[in-house]
C-alpha cells in the first residue's frame, strides 16, 4: 500500500550559468550529488536507488547515466532513466516517489542535469517536430498551418507565440503584463544563489526594450540556456525521521498528456496550445489525491514551470489557483511577490534559469526548501509555508506534471 514519502534534502551545483567550461558532464553532475550528500549528512550507502533525468538530444550523449554512473554514486544500485521533455525533472521525481511509496526503496536520490553549452537546445527541440514535418511534406500536406509552423517558426519560440497570443486574447492581459511578470522573476532570481539571469533592478520597461522575437514574445520573456545540475533526496517516513531534521512531505503527484498535434485543424477548429486541458486534469487529480479542497486559498507558495514569462500567468489560471483572467490582476496588486499573498516563483522560475533536465525538478526542490525554511539568499518567503504547489510542462506544450507538498505527512 501507499507509504508516506518526504523530501529530506536538495543539492545544487554551486552556480547555474551559461557555460561551465571547467567541468565535464559527469563532473558537473557530481557537484550537485556531493552537495546533496553534504546538505543531508548522508553517504552513498544510504541510497537504495537512483533516478536519472535529462534530455539527451541537447548534448548528444545517449543514456548519460551509463557514463556518469560512478559520479552519481550508483554502482550496484537500481538506476532508472526518465525523459519526458521539459517535465523530465518532475517525471523523474515522480518515479522516485513511486519507488519509496511502493516500499521498493527507502531512500532514493533523483539526479537531473543539463549542460546546454555542449549542444544546441533549439536544434534538439526542432527534433521533436522536424520528422513530422518531413512526413507531412512527403504526403503533400500543407505545413504552413498547424504544428508545422512550430518548426518553421524556429524551435520552441515559434509554437509558443501561438500560445501567448491565444492567452492574451482569452485573459485580457496585455504584453505589458508579460513584461512585468518577467521583470518580477528576474528580481526574484537576484535573491536566489542558484539562479542564472539575475537583475535586482529589473522593471517592465526594461524588459519592454528587448527585441521582439516572435510576437508577442520578446527576448526578455524567454528563458536562458543554462548549465546546471539538481539532486533531490526522498525517504520513507521511517527513514526521514531517522535521517532528517526538516522534511517536505509529498502530498500527491499527478500528470497528464494530450494529443501532440496542438495547433492543428481538428473538425474545422484550431486546437489551442493555451487551452491546457492536461494541466487542468493533472491539477484536479493532484488536488483530489492531496485532499486540497480550495486551491485558490490553500497554497502558501507556488512554483510554475515557465520557459516563457506569459506561462506564469497562464498556468496560475489553468491550475485553478485563481480565476481565468485574474492572474495579471494578482501581478498588478503585488500578490505574486515574495512578500505577497501568493508568492509565485520566488526562485525566479524557469524564465530565469533553464537547465532543462533540472528545471521541473527545481520547481519541486524550491517548493520543498520554502517549506523547510531553507531557501537561501533572501528568497525565503516571510511566512510559514504549510502547503506548496509545483507545476511543470513538457512534451509539445501538451504534457503536464504537478506535485503538491506539505509540512506534515499526508496520511496518518
Amino acid at each position: 500500500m501507499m507509504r508516506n514519502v518526504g523530501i529530506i534534502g536538495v543539492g545544487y551545483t554551486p552556480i547555474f550559468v551559461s557555460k561551465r567550461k571547467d567541468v565535464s558532464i559527469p563532473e558537473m553532475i557530481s557537484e550537485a550529488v556531493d552537495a546533496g550528500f553534504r546538505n543531508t549528512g548522508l553517504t552513498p550507502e544510504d541510497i537504495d536507488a537512483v533516478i536519472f533525468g535529462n534530455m539527451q538530444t541537447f548534448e548528444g550523449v545517449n543514456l548519460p547515466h551509463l557514463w556518469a554512473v560512478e559520479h552519481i554514486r550508483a554502482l550496484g544500485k537500481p538506476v532508472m532513466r526518465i525523459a519526458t521533455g521539459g517535465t523530465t525533472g518532475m517525471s523523474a521525481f515522480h518515479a522516485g516517489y513511486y519507488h519509496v511509496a511502493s516500499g521498493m526503496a527507502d531512500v532514493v536520490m533523483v539526479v537531473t542535469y543539463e549542460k546546454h553549452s555542449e549542444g544546441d537546445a533549439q536544434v534538439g527541440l526542432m527534433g521533436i517536430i522536424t520528422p513530422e514535418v518531413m512526413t507531412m511534406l512527403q504526403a503533400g500536406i500543407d505545413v504552413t498551418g498547424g504544428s508545422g509552423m512550430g518548426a518553421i517558426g524556429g524551435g520552441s519560440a515559434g509554437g509558443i507565440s501561438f500560445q501567448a497570443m491565444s492567452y492574451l486574447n482569452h485573459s485580457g492581459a496585455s504584453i505589458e503584463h508579460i513584461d512585468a511578470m518577467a521583470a518580477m522573476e528576474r528580481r526574484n532570481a537576484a535573491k536566489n544563489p542558484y539562479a542564472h539571469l539575475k537583475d535586482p533592478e529589473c522593471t517592465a520597461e526594461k524588459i519592454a526594450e528587448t527585441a521582439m522575437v516572435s510576437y508577442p514574445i520578446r527576448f526578455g520573456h524567454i528563458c536562458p540556456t543554462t548549465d546546471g545540475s539538481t539532486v533531490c533526496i526522498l525517504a520513507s517516513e521511517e527513514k526521514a525521521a531517522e535521517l532528517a531534521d526538516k522534511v517536505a512531505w509529498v502530498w500527491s503527484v499527478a500528470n497528464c498528456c494530450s494529443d501532440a498535434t496542438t495547433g492543428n485543424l481538428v473538425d474545422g477548429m484550431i486546437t489551442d496550445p493555451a487551452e491546457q486541458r492536461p494541466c487542468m486534469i493533472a491539477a484536479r487529480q493532484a488536488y483530489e489525491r492531496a485532499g486540497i479542497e480550495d486551491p485558490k486559498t490553500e497554497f502558501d507558495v507556488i512554483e510554475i514551470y515557465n520557459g516563457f514569462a506569459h506561462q506564469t500567468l497562464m498556468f496560475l489560471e489553468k491550475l485553478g489557483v485563481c480565476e481565468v483572467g485574474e492572474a495579471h490582476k494578482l501581478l498588478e496588486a503585488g500578490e505574486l511577490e515574495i512578500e505577497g499573498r501568493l508568492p509565485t516563483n520566488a526562485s525566479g522560475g524557469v524564465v530565469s534559469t533553464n537547465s532543462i533536465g533540472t528545471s521541473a525538478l527545481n520547481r519541486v526542490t524550491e517548493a520543498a526548501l520554502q517549506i523547510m525554511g531553507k531557501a537561501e539568499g533572501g528568497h525565503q518567503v516571510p511566512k510559514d509555508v504549510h502547503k506548496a504547489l509545483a507545476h511543470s510542462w513538457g512534451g509539445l506544450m501538451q504534457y503536464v506534471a504537478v506535485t503538491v507538498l506539505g509540512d506534515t505527512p499526508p496520511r496518518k
Partner: protein
Amino acid sequence: MDGKVAIAGYNISPCSSNMVTSRERLLFDLTTGLFEELGIDRDAVDTFIIATNDFLDGRTISNVFLDPPIGAYMKDETKVEMDAVNAIAYGWMRILTGQYDTALIVSLGLCGHQISPYLHIDYTLDATYDRQLKLLNELSAAALQAGSYLGKYGYPAELLDEIAAKDLGNAALDPYQARRLDGISAEEVGKSRYLYEPLRELHCYPPTDGGCVMLLASEDRAGELTDKPVWILGMGRSIDKYYIGDRDLAVSPSTTQAAKVAYDMAGIKDPAGEVDLAEISSIFAHQEPLLAEALGLFEEGKAVDIYSSGDSAIDGRLPVNPSGGALGAHPICSTGLIRMAEAARQLRGEAEGNQVKKAGVAVAHGQDGMCAQQNAVVVLGI
C-alpha cells in the same frame, strides 16, 4: 512486498529487418490488438509507461506523438528511456502503491533501417575521450568481452557457433523472430563472416524493427482480465562501471546483484534447481552463458558441456532462450519486454513449437549499455 502484480496480457510484433510501418502505426496495432484480445478499451488502462529512446527514434521527446496511438491522451503517461523491463519495474511499483490497478507498458525499437545499428552505443561513450578516440564501439567492445569470456575458461571459439546455432534453431520456430534460418548448424554459423574477431555475423544480433506491449494488473483486476495470469514474483536491477578498462568483462556483477534481489523477493534459493526456463537478452552469443552464469543458472566453466549436451535446448534440463533470444531479433528497448512476453507465453503453455516441457517459474532479463553495463532481472511464475 504487499500485493501481487500480474501480466494480464501482452502483444509482440512479428519483428523484421525492414518493417514497412511507422512508430505510430506499429504501436496502434499492438495496443488495439491487445485491447481486443482482453475485451477492453483504453478506459481500462490507468497509467501508461513508454520505453523508447530518442536517439533510436531520431527525434526529441519521442513519446510525444505516441500518446494518441496508444490511447494515452488525457491520461497519465511517462517515459522510461531504457530497456522496457525497467518500465515494467516502474509500472509494477505504481500498481503496488494501490493508486493504479493497471499499467500498460509500451515499447518499440525501429532499428532495422539505420545506417549503423551500433550508432546509439557510440553516443553513450564518454564524449570527451572514448568517442573521440574511435577505438570503442558496440562491436569492438563486444568482441573484447567475447575474447575475455572465452579466454577465462579456455573455451574454443567454436563454442560461439554452438550457442548461436541453438538460438537460431529456436528462433526459426518462433513466429515473432526476424532472423529465420531453419535448420542452421554450428558449422554453418562458423562460416559466416567475421564482424569483429571472434564475433561472426551470426553471433551478433540482427538490426531489427519491432515492438511489444504488456498490460500489468493488480491481483483483483488481473482476475477480471484473464484466466491465465502470470505473476511477477521478483524484480532486481543494477549497474556496472562505465569504463571498459575498469571492468572484468568476463563476469556481470550487476546481473548477479539484480538476480539476488529478484530471487530473494521470489523466495528462490537454488535458481539452477528451481527455475524452469530463462529468457535472456544476450545480444551477442557469448553473453548467453556469461549472463546465465551471473543469473546462477549455469555452473561457471561448464559452458562447453552445457551446450554440447543440449542441457539448455528447448527439451533440455534448463532451457535458455527457447524463443531464440536476441540473436533472432533485437528491437532495442523492446528486447527485454519481448523476453518477458516469451517467458509468459511459456508459462501459459502457449509457446507451440517453442514450448518447454515444464514451465512453472521463469527468469527474464533485459540489458542496456555497452557490454551489458546495466541489467534488469524479473522472476515470473503461475
